[in-house]
């Protein structure tokens, strides 16, 4: 009898473990699915707090389809008419006063804030990073350690904490190759966007210049939609 229970327990244990402990890959895939869905059309607000104490609010619409993305800025007046485009590894910003698109790098700052262009236009941790679960000090959180697969990613290493209950990102730390902490982020204000529930507010702190931080708020979000392919063509910028 005892033996039978033992065998049963042995057989059941892995199942329990699986139910309790998702794989690192599954968590990262989940992160990508809710924080950067495969296709979406969103309205966002990025507020950058600068070191001189001033703030600037950028309101924009973002459209994404796999590795292509497009942004239209509405506010402030100085950025109105600006657009951005990402196709694969390439990114451009369209300046209405120049009537021309300029290439920008993924690592460059997004509108002078503390998010990089890559943070906004290119979030795909599943393909860019190797992930593994590491012991977390907080029992309610998973701690994931993401290591860059290639030197082409913006950060060399990311520590990502996700809540065990809802599997939402809670906070993250972004490290340089030298091991220095560059940025840290917190995720809060969980909101329901139609079928998708996720934190709607990200605060990105510049760890090398603590007077600087930026907030990104998702105001509206539609997912799983067909976006017209011609929106992701360089010639369409400014139209």
């Amino acid at each position, binding site marked *: 009898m005892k033996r039978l229970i033992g065998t049963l327990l042995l057989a059941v244990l892995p199942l329990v473990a699986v139910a309790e402990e998702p794989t690192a890959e599954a968590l990262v895939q989940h992160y990508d699915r809710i924080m950067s869905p495969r296709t979406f059309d969103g309205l966002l607000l990025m507020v950058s707090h600068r*070191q001189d104490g001033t703030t600037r609010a950028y309101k924009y619409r973002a459209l994404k389809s796999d590795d292509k993305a497009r942004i239209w800025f509405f506010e402030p007046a100085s950025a109105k008419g600006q657009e951005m485009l990402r196709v694969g590894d390439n990114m451009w910003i369209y300046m209405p006063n120049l009537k021309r698109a300029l290439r920008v*790098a993924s690592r460059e700052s997004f509108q002078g804030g503390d998010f*990089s262009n890559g943070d906004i236009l290119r979030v795909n941790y599943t393909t860019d990073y190797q992930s593994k679960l590491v012991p977390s000090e907080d029992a309610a959180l998973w701690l994931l350690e993401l290591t860059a697969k*290639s030197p082409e990613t913006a950060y060399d290493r990311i520590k990502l904490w996700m809540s065990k209950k809802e599997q939402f990102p809670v906070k993250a730390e972004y490290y*340089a190759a030298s091991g220095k902490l*560059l940025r840290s982020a917190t995720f809060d204000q969980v909101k329901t966007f139609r079928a998708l529930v996720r934190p709607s507010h990200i605060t990105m702190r510049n760890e090398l210049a603590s007077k600087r931080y930026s907030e990104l708020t998702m105001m509206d979000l539609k997912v799983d939609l067909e976006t017209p392919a011609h929106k992701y063509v360089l010639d369409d910028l400014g139209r």
Partner: protein
Amino acid sequence: MRFLLLALRNLLRNKRRTLITGLAVAFGALAIVLLQAFVNALVRNIVETSVLAKVGPVQVFKEGYLSSDDRLKLAFDDSPELAARIRAVPGVTAVAPRIDFDGMLSNGTESTVFIATAIDPSTEYQVCPMRSTLVAKGSRPIGPADAHGALLGRTLADALGGIPGTTLVMQAAGPNAGTNALDVVVQGFLPNSNPLASKRIATVPIGFAQELLRMPRRVTQYVVGVSDLAHVDEVAVRVRAAVGDGYKVTTWKELDANTRDRAKVIQGVLFFIALVLALLVATGIINTTMMSVHERVREIGTMLAVGVRRRQVTTLFLFEAAALGLISAVVGTFLGYALVAVLGHNGLQGRAPGGDVMTYYPGVGFTFLAAVVAFTVAGTALAAAYPAWKASRMRPVEALRAT
């Protein structure tokens, strides 16, 4: 010959007038010599503080580097073989690797943009000997032992409270997309050459840059030192042949068009001033010769009457003017040269707008002195040409009757 002697004696007939005109010519020559000496000093300072302290006489890049929007991608291997090949070119004194890059510099609470040049202290000062003086008072240039030291523009350092000895963080992206960050120790300051640059510039050791940018043993350019800056173009042609295809060889004139243009503008201004001075002096000469023609009308009539040829009359007046020009020019240039020699020995302190005090050493070449004398003689003769011709056209009968 007889006419030349006659011309010299004629000059002594009205000593006061000759003296005044001569002084005007001599002063003109002296002013031009002095101006040229100052311009030489200024141009040399401008060129040397740029070329021998920062840019370097010749630079070698990968083809397309200067027009690329992602320059670090066009870095190349720091190859001893390639460096040796360039060093073997006649006229080349040394080769030094460099990396130009930019990024953010922060102190923990604030950050600002920087533009840095990474140098190899063991070879850089052979290529740019004046770079070792390119530090603010009290700062030490980067040496082979400084692995993590940086020299910053004063305004850049001030913005981050970076006094010598403090540690700041340099953040930059290399040829790959990822950003890296490393601690850097403020070792000192770069001199205030221009307020805009002072807000951005930094100098770091090349090893530090290679670690920060994650591009070990790679560089963006070779800087080539030459034995004589005046022959930089010829050396560049030979270096071009030595490095072969795939590399672009440029001289400081292309890399620092600003400095080249400033030198040209200053020389252009000098030329204009010299022209105005020459015109003023020429007016004086014309006046003097005219006067002597007018007061010697009867004499000219007599000469023509006794059979002196018209051509000889012209020659006489031309000789008078040219002799006056020659003597005055020699005196003027000699005085100018003596003055320049004294100034050049002691040096002159001056301050460029927004910059630090610099010492200028005026100097002129002997070819320039010879040219000033030659042009003065030719100029005075030319100025006297019309009055002299007029004198020779006189009709003897009327000239003799004149009062």
